[in-house]
């Protein structure tokens, strides 16, 4: 097949469709469970499974530190991991715009394969549709995943307790900042790369040191600040943050300063927010710091009984203020 662009014929179900699937998807995703039938046939161990799905429409589809393919694997792998589930199998559905460059599609598939391998997950079913020019923007991907929940894991947004430490697995806001700059609307240049990464190994490393982990949440759209308000609400607790302890890269701080944005509300695609008893926090942070993609993990605050449903900031001058609630559209189509 020598087509340089995706055409409507590639989505018609005939010869060109199989050529596209063979050349782009089978080529990269090859594994024993990848099906050519109507559905993949999988074996599961006994126990609880986690099951989730996520759609990806990021614009632009390529950015510093990744592309929509890598993002689509990380998003679903991380959602499973946050439940203490080892990601096992993924499916992926593509909606491709007519005229999309074939080499870019290959790059996206290659990034998906590489990320899946890194996360230890198999892509075993998929679907391809082609939509007319202008009916989608480039390529949209939906991934669905199944994971096996570890017997010793029990995490939920409802389980945060007064006395828990609040931990982030790295410096925040890089993905949102990267996308913002990639859109070229602001005339700002800065050396920022997305934090987009699969985090199963990091979650596993935490459970290797303790089972006593109450909440793990993947801070994506809305950033860490949104996650904190969600947990404060779900668990009926207050959260106090120490502004000076929140890790933010200097470049991200600079861009936020210029545009008047709060890094806590910028999207991440490879950052976990963890709630665990204070006496376990040090072990968790040191386990995370030994892993790739969480070298800058830090305790950023604690859970309190008072101020239920609110997030309070200890400011850099030793005063306190409320973290403003997220609201309105900061930036559409970031993931």
């Amino acid at each position, binding site marked *: 097949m020598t087509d340089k662009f995706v055409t409507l014929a590639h989505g018609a179900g005939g010869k060109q469709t199989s050529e596209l699937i063979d050349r782009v998807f089978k080529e990269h995703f090859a594994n024993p469970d990848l099906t050519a039938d109507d559905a993949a046939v999988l074996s599961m161990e006994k126990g609880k499974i986690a099951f989730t799905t996520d759609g990806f429409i990021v614009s632009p589809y390529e950015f510093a530190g990744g592309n929509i393919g890598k993002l689509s694997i990380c998003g679903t792998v991380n959602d499973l991991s946050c439940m203490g589930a080892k990601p096992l199998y993924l499916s992926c559905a593509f909606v491709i715009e007519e005229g999309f460059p074939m080499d870019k599609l290959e790059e996206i598939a290659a990034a998906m394969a590489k990320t899946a391998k890194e996360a230890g997950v198999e892509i075993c079913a998929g679907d391809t549709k082609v939509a007319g020019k202008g009916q989608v923007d480039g390529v949209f991907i939906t991934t669905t995943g199944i994971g096996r929940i570890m017997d010793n894991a029990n995490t939920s947004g409802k389980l945060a307790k007064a006395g828990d430490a609040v931990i982030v697995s790295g410096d925040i806001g890089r993905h949102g900042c990267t996308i913002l700059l990639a859109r070229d609307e*602001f005339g700002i240049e800065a050396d920022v790369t997305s934090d987009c990464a699969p985090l199963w190994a990091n979650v596993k490393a935490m459970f290797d040191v303790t089972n006593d982990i109450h909440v793990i949440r993947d801070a994506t759209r809305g950033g860490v600040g949104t996650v904190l308000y969600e947990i404060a609400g779900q668990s009926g607790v207050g959260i106090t943050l120490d502004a000076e302890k929140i890790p933010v890269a200097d470049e991200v701080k600079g861009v936020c300063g210029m545009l008047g944005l709060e890094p806590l509300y910028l999207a991440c695609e490879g950052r976990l927010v963890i709630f665990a008893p204070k006496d376990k926090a040090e072990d968790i942070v040191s386990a995370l710091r030994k892993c790739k993609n969480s070298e800058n993990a830090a305790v950023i605050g604690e859970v309190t009984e008072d101020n239920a449903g*609110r997030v309070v900031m200890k400011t850099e*001058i030793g005063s*306190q*203020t409320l973290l403003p609630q997220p609201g309105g559209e900061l930036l559409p189509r970031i993931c």
Partner: protein
Amino acid sequence: MNTIENAKEIISSYKREDGKKLRIMEVCGTHTHEIFRLGIRKLLPESVELISGPGCPVCVTPIGFIDEACMLALEKGAEICTFGDLIRVPGTEMSLAGARSKGAVIKTVYSPLDAVSYAESHRDEQVVFLAVGFETTTPSACLAVEKAKKLGLENFSILGANKTMPNAYKALEGSADAFLYPGHVNAITGTAVCEELVKKGVSGVVTGFTAAELLTALAVTIELSQRGEPFFRNCYPRVVKPEGNPAAIKLMEKVMTPCDSEWRGLGIIPMSGMILRDEYADFDARKKFALPKITGKPNPACRCGDVLQGKCKPSDCKVFGKVCTPLHPIGACMVSNEGACSAYYQYGNL
């Protein structure tokens, strides 16, 4: 002791015997926002009151201006380029967001020059840039007009609501005992204006934007106020020079000339605005589209005007936080991140 601790000590130990309060007005919206973000209000003793003044360009832009912009977009067929903050400010009938849902083309830009580039690449459309702002942003609007003139763009114009601070301070006399002057404005205008104001009995300090700069300015204001005479101090000397930015001033004077200007809540303040000079009249949207005189009608329940003059706190307004919220603003002060109502709402009463 470092600067921050030193300043905190001066601020927190300030006491008055007469039972009155030292009323300090932060004029700039960025100051308002930073003061809330840092939790500075919680550090103030009872004897100090901070008042959020009219220094957010979106907040002081009158309703009639939004009505004019909507008319340009819906009836005159112009495409509007604007800073994002203005889009949700309510007009008499609707906001620009409302106009957009009726089919108007409203585009967000981050600089007036972006609007010129847009006009350059859309020669078949009439493009109007909504020029609001103080001495900080007016030079870039002037630059945009100059560029459009040089390019010979016949499809670019501005709807102006540019404002200048000096006469606003005079109009606000009595609202506060001292002003925290907006450092970014003084970086352009210099400090002569403030020296003049001292002679008229108006006190203030030029203030920067970091925690140390804000706390220092407050501490200096408290100390100088105890001397019992009008004062001025430049507490932002790393950025604000006495002569300001002569190139920017020259550009503004070349392209624009002072005029009377309407401020939301404060009414018309003589010679507190800037309008395009006759040589640039082709770029004045009001003239180009022969706009009629429009007087906007604010929602009667909204007390933004009183808030901007320090006559009441946002929480004293009946609609604050109930029907007027950042997602559904009734007054301009709730729209902009730098508006006093938005800051009170978002940072809450801890």
